[in-house]
């Protein structure tokens, strides 16, 4: 009866693997199975529903049905959308350049805070920082001992006080002690607490107000089910989280919590714990998590291809540059690099909505593959300044670049010329609407110029990446908000 649970999304998606012609009805049916698989991976109900609605809308668009392999298109879209939900990546801890930075860990009981405090300390120490641990869990028996043991293993100092004290004071004293000890990153290990416990949530807010941490990180067990969003939301509302750390991902949890929590709170997942040992902390990668939710397997290859094709960041960047009528050799190189990773030109075009239909017209593309390698070599031999301003590349520079990349100077000339006309076309396109852009793009593609970074109708949608607010600025805003709140209370 419960086979459904163990069967993965791959199973659901295998529906799309058949070669049979897809119809709107069959896509809808298949995506229903996708929804079920997401729920079985603990993805929040609303998130799963929204997700499937969105994919359905995209998949039913003409572009998918008309493309050479609609099945694969859909797989690609599902994968990419999963990544969109969990991204963009942001592994920065936004520590201060000088002076002392404070990281506060919080979360439910047993999620892995104390262990993660140790892992972060270890990582920071390796990066040449001077971490300092503060044992602010005065509740759980031997929590202080646990952090002390970890500190001793890492040779990182630990500030601890008697367990009958007050955690807020412990944190304040801890920061003072850290300053005195010449440390530059303080990590506060707080007690586990339920998000529905008003007193203990207020205690965290107090610590936040009194020591003003640069980073407040929510430690979340990857095995958490549907309730994950409730706790994450509550902690975020109380504290304005800066990041999430997912723990215990070394097991076989599908990690739907990761997807839901990011989607519901908008807080980036920064790191993931992949073991009990203190070196088992890794930057979080939405792609890996997405294929995990999908059930891995042979999904991987295709998914990787699709993912790179739709690579969010570089697509967003190229798109932005394009819209501003600015297209530099740098973004050209980025695009080329991405293409190369994928293998041959033809296989890539297949995954680009609207492009696959043109494969027939393009004829033999093997030459193009070799070109890419050479073009990459040429651009790599340019200085950053040259890439930004190709018009400044004079004859002697051209010779140098040719020597550096082992090609004839004439080839460098040709690249620059091609690039010049491409950039011009891009500039022209910047003012056009989407449809005309697409037409222009198809023209360019069939004339041998291909710019993979631009958005095509129906392609994985680019989302502009919100600029991360710097920690100090955020602090200021927070402080002002607090003041306002107090004022309001007085009234």
């Amino acid at each position: 009866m419960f086979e459904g649970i163990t069967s993965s999304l791959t199973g659901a998606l295998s529906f799309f693997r058949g070669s049979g012609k897809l119809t709107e009805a069959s896509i809808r049916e298949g995506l229903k199975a996708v929804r079920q698989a997401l729920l079985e991976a603990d993805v929040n109900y609303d998130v799963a529903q929204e997700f499937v609605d969105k994919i359905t809308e995209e998949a039913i668009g003409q572009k998918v049905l008309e493309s050479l392999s609609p099945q694969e298109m859909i797989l690609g879209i599902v994968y990419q959308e999963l990544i969109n939900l969990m991204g963009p990546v942001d592994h920065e801890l936004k520590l201060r350049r000088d002076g002392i930075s404070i990281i506060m860990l919080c979360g439910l009981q047993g999620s892995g805070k104390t262990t993660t405090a140790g892992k972060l300390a270890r990582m920071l120490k390796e990066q040449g920082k001077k971490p300092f641990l503060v044992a602010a869990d005065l509740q759980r028996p031997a929590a202080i001992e646990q952090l002390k043991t970890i500190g001793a293993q890492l040779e990182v100092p630990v500030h601890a006080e008697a367990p009958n004290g007050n955690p807020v004071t412990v944190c304040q004293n801890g920061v003072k002690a850290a300053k005195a000890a010449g440390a530059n990153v303080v990590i506060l290990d707080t007690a586990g607490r339920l998000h529905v416990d008003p007193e203990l949530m207020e205690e965290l807010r107090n610590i936040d107000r009194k020591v003003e941490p640069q980073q407040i990180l929510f430690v979340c067990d990857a095995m958490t089910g549907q309730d994950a969003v409730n706790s994450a939301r509550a902690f975020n509302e109380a504290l304005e989280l800066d990041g999430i750390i997912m723990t215990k991902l070394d097991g076989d949890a599908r990690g739907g919590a990761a997807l839901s929590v990011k989607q519901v709170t908008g807080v980036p997942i920064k790191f993931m714990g992949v073991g009990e040992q203190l070196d088992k902390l890794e930057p979080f990668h939405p792609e890996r998590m997405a294929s995990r939710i999908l059930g891995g397997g042979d999904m991987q290859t295709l998914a990787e291809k699709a993912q790179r094709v739709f690579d969010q960041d570089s697509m967003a960047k190229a798109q932005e540059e394009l819209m501003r009528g600015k297209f530099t050799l740098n973004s050209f190189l980025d695009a080329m690099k991405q293409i190369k990773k994928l293998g041959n030109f033809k296989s890539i075009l297949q995954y680009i909505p609207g492009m696959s239909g043109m494969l027939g017209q393009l004829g033999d593309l093997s030459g193009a593959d070799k070109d890419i390698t050479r073009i990459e070599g040429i651009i790599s031999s340019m200085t950053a300044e040259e890439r930004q301003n190709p018009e400044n590349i004079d004859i002697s520079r051209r010779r140098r670049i040719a020597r550096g990349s082992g090609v004839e100077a004439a080839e460098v000339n040709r690249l620059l010329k091609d690039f010049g006309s491409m950039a011009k076309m891009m500039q022209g396109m910047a003012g056009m609407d989407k449809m005309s852009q697409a037409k222009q793009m198809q023209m360019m593609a069939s004339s041998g110029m291909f710019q993979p970074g631009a958005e095509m109708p129906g392609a994985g949608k680019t989302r502009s990446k919100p600029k991360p607010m710097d920690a100090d600025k955020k602090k200021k805003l927070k402080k002002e908000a607090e003041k306002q709140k107090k004022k309001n209370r007085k009234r």
Partner: protein
Amino acid sequence: MGWFDSLKRGISKTAQILNTDVRDLFKAGEILTEDKLVLYHKRLISTDMGVAAADALIVEIREKHLGRTVILDELWKTIHDKLESLLRGVDGEVWDPEQPLSPLNFSNVGPTVILVAGVNGVGKTTSIAKLANLLKKNGKKVVLAAGDTFRAAAVEQLTMWSQRIGVEIVTKPSQSDPAAVAHAGCTRTKELNADVLIVDTAGRLHTEVNLMNQLTKIRRVISSQIPDAPHETLLVLDAVTGQNGITQAQKFSEAAGCTGIILAKLDGTARGGIVIAIRQQMSLPVKYVGVGEQIDDLQLFNPTAFVDALLATGP
């Protein structure tokens, strides 16, 4: 949060259900539509009971009530009965709420051994402390064995609990073989002529084959010391756990022959619906629930109360 508070909260949850979940969604006198069933499905999913159990329940409601006028009491009964029967399982074990030790299988001869296992951070050590306290209060002489020699200060943690409760504890230095701790625990229990030995184990993910084999070894050592032991192998599950709980239950049962579940951290907003899926699939009963971090926050599992809380209005 005290026992009384959690009880109070449990009751208020139960009260809510009649006002919100069923009554709110299905209006008495209206015709029950498929749309309503879709909405109710969502609420069931939010309990972590899993798609299959939720589907089964919806099928049942559809069969009995779709297209008919809603009679709240009957609808409520359909849902409640189905879940409760699921939870009770085929063997239909019902424990006497007046007898807090009734879910436990005690040895007729010599000491009873309870082995406690589960994935990391679910609440094993705390549950052991609560259980030891319960046993002691009911006149049993208890010994603890600090079998988690791996995690930093795990031994200290159980030691502090043993001192608070006032029970004997057997420990070995950090990194010792946990089977050796279990062995020493058995010896000490016999020496003291104690009634119950509870063995703590390090948290482990069920995907770690070596660590799962270690559990099998601990079991073997225990049974070589005390015949028919361990008499209970309790799997501690975190109420917040999602569908991964099913694999946990399967794998731990394979490696350690679990006889029951302690569902910890049920005092949060998580509903612990995963135990329904587990019960449905493998007849592993829930014996106790943890409802707080303190020593008294352990309650006998009561299927009726649990189902009430489970169906209380979701977020």
